[in-house]
């Protein structure tokens, strides 16, 4: 039974518990009621049958003693009530008030009891239904008097009673289940409120709180839930502030470094040849440092960004063209649908970073993109970057979009990034309601695809 109960929901379990509980209670009640009523009714019947038998036996004895009539005649005058039959044994011969009864209907045990001089009662079932036999010895008249009373009517009553009680028990069980449904709704309702509040909070509505309640049982849950959300909001706030502080702390020295190195760059001719080489190295590393810091800050921003107003509309085709030109790549790499058909919602600088990261990624791992396409497909605009490099093995195709995932050893070196580029692509796309994925390219290498929902006009 345990395995069957295990996977059920809270609600189903509550309903089941109520139904089973009601069923047990009503079964006990019904059983007790039935058996008490049955024994009471049988008792009553037995008493009345016994009383009737004694009355009839006395009547018979008085007739036999006064007029000296034969047993058979006296028995014929006797009219037992309630469908009973009287059987009399006199001097070894059997007489009966009805044609269909006789000595054979008297149980042997009773006959034995009466024969020994005691009165007795026996309940037995027969071909015509249950019946009760009362035996009385009339020693003064040398008779054994038996009265056979049918119990069919009583049995019918008991059947009806059992049916009514059974129906009552079933109705109570159904009512219990119904009450269980109601109670489970009542119990689950606060949980559903908590769940919907948690969903809203997960979606970024950090101002969501549970409404205060008077229910002392829910007070603790509501209180601790709201405290948890407060703590969470404070934590997120602190993290965001931390990112802001760190960004400021890192950006300020980086700014003076970049500016100073540029001043040095303007005086390149004044340096020795070794000094110029060192300056070139510093410039390269500084650029890489700046890219990594920008990537980190961008990811932190994506983590902390809240659902703001819809970003402006921009043509992804035009944007890709501008990125190609701005990064010194040939613009004819791009095949794009009409600019008006490739409009998406997104901040230009964020989309630019995503597109640039895809192109840089192709440079790093495949010696450059062989084809960039921007096309409208139904309600989405696709940006597809194909390369002719070694491609990405199917098991790695999801992993490469995770943070700090870097390419194979062979591709590492001076060109290597921090493994944040594709993570930014994927997270930027996700933030704008789109997605990014990797597949095999017809050019032989990898095909990176970014899909963004088309802008509402």
């Amino acid at each position, binding site marked *: 039974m345990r395995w069957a109960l295990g996977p059920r929901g809270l609600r189903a379990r509550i309903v089941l518990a109520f139904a089973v509980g009601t069923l047990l209670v009503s079964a006990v009640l019904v059983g007790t009621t039935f058996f008490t009523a049955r024994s009471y009714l049988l008792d009553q019947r037995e008493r009345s049958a016994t009383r009737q038998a004694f009355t009839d036996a006395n009547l018979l004895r008085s007739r036999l003693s006064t007029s000296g009539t034969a047993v058979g005649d006296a028995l014929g005058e006797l009219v037992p009530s309630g469908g009973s039959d009287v059987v009399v044994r006199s001097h070894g011969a059997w007489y009966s008030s009805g044609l269909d009864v006789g000595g054979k209907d008297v149980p042997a045990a009773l006959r034995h009891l009466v024969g020994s001089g005691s009165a007795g009662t026996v309940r037995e079932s027969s071909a015509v239904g249950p019946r009760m036999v009362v035996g009385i010895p009339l020693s003064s008249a040398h008779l054994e008097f038996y009265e056979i009373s049918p119990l069919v009517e009583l049995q019918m009553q008991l059947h009806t009673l059992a049916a009514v009680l059974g129906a009552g028990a079933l109705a109570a069980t159904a009512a219990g289940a119904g009450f269980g449904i109601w109670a489970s709704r009542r119990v689950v309702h606060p949980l559903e409120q908590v769940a919907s509040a948690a969903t809203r909070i997960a979606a970024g509505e950090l101002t969501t709180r549970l409404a205060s309640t008077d229910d002392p049982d829910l007070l603790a849950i509501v209180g601790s839930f709201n405290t948890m959300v407060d703590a969470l909001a404070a934590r997120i706030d602190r993290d965001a502030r931390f990112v*802001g502080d760190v*960004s*400021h702390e890192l*950006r*300020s*020295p*980086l*700014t*003076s470094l*970049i*500016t*100073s190195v*540029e*001043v040095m760059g*303007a005086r390149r001719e004044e340096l020795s040849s070794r000094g110029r080489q060192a300056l070139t190295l510093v410039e390269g590393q500084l650029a890489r440092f*700046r890219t990594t*810091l920008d990537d980190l*800050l961008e990811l932190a*921003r994506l983590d902390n960004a809240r659902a*703001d107003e819809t970003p*402006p*509309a921009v043509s992804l085709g*035009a*944007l890709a063209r*501008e990125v190609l030109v*701005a990064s010194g790549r040939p613009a004819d790499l791009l095949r794009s649908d009409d600019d008006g058909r490739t409009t998406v919602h997104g901040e*230009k*600088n964020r989309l*630019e970073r995503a597109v640039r990261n895809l192109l840089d990624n192709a440079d790093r791992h495949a010696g450059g993109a062989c084809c960039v396409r921007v096309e409208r497909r139904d309600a989405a605009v696709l940006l597809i970057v194909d390369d002719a490099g070694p491609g990405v093995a199917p098991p790695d195709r999801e992993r490469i979009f995770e943070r700090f995932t870097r390419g194979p050893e062979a591709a590492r070196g001076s060109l290597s990034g921090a493994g944040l580029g594709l993570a930014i692509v994927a997270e930027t796309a996700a933030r704008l309601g789109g997605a990014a994925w990797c597949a095999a390219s017809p050019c032989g290498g990898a095909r990176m695809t970014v899909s963004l929902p088309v802008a509402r*006009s």
Partner: protein
Amino acid sequence: MAPRLLIVEDDDHIRTSLRWAMEDEGYAVDEAASGEAACRAVDADPPDLMLVDLMLGRMDGFGVIRAVRRGHDLPIVVVSARSDTHDIVAALEAGADDYVTKPFQVKEITARLRALRRRVGAGTAPANDGQPAETVLDRDPAAPLVLREGRGTVHRGPRQLPLTVTEFRLLCELAASPGRVLSRQELLERVWQHGFFGDERIVDVHVRRLRTKVEQDPGAPRIVVTVRGLGYRLDPQ
């Protein structure tokens, strides 16, 4: 004569390296290490251009910009370590003309300053026949709005409006093709010389600022109108 640039920055290293770089670019550089010092320097002898860091000490960059804007129309470029949307919009609304975020490259700043300097030059170019050209933008008989591009002035009735050079340039660009919609991108290229990746919010904030000065009811603009999804248009009244 070398244009005079005031650098307002509380970080000594950035200020010093920026000074070297800007002197290399041919600017005469003054420095201010705090908001209060910057305000004193501007009051004593206004520079031609300003570079203002937003995160200063007690008086922050927004305060400096607001204080300077009370009496001066000189171009102000904000330098910010924050790329947060609200800070940048707040700085532009306080009166900044453009912004760069740290870490920047010197050529980004010089490009911004050059674009802003160009506007000053264009604004003071003499009219061809000695008679300054007038464009009436609002024929309201009580208080007509008159743009004199050659002189670099805008009058509402007898009163000269205190437009910054950038606002003035924006108005001139819009007035140059009345009734035609100019996209944010076009305005950004013409007024600020930004490329494709420029921030179009700069245009929106400047249009908002311009309206508070030229419109009779800035809440219901009739001269500089927004064309939803396309850009802005100047409708002479």
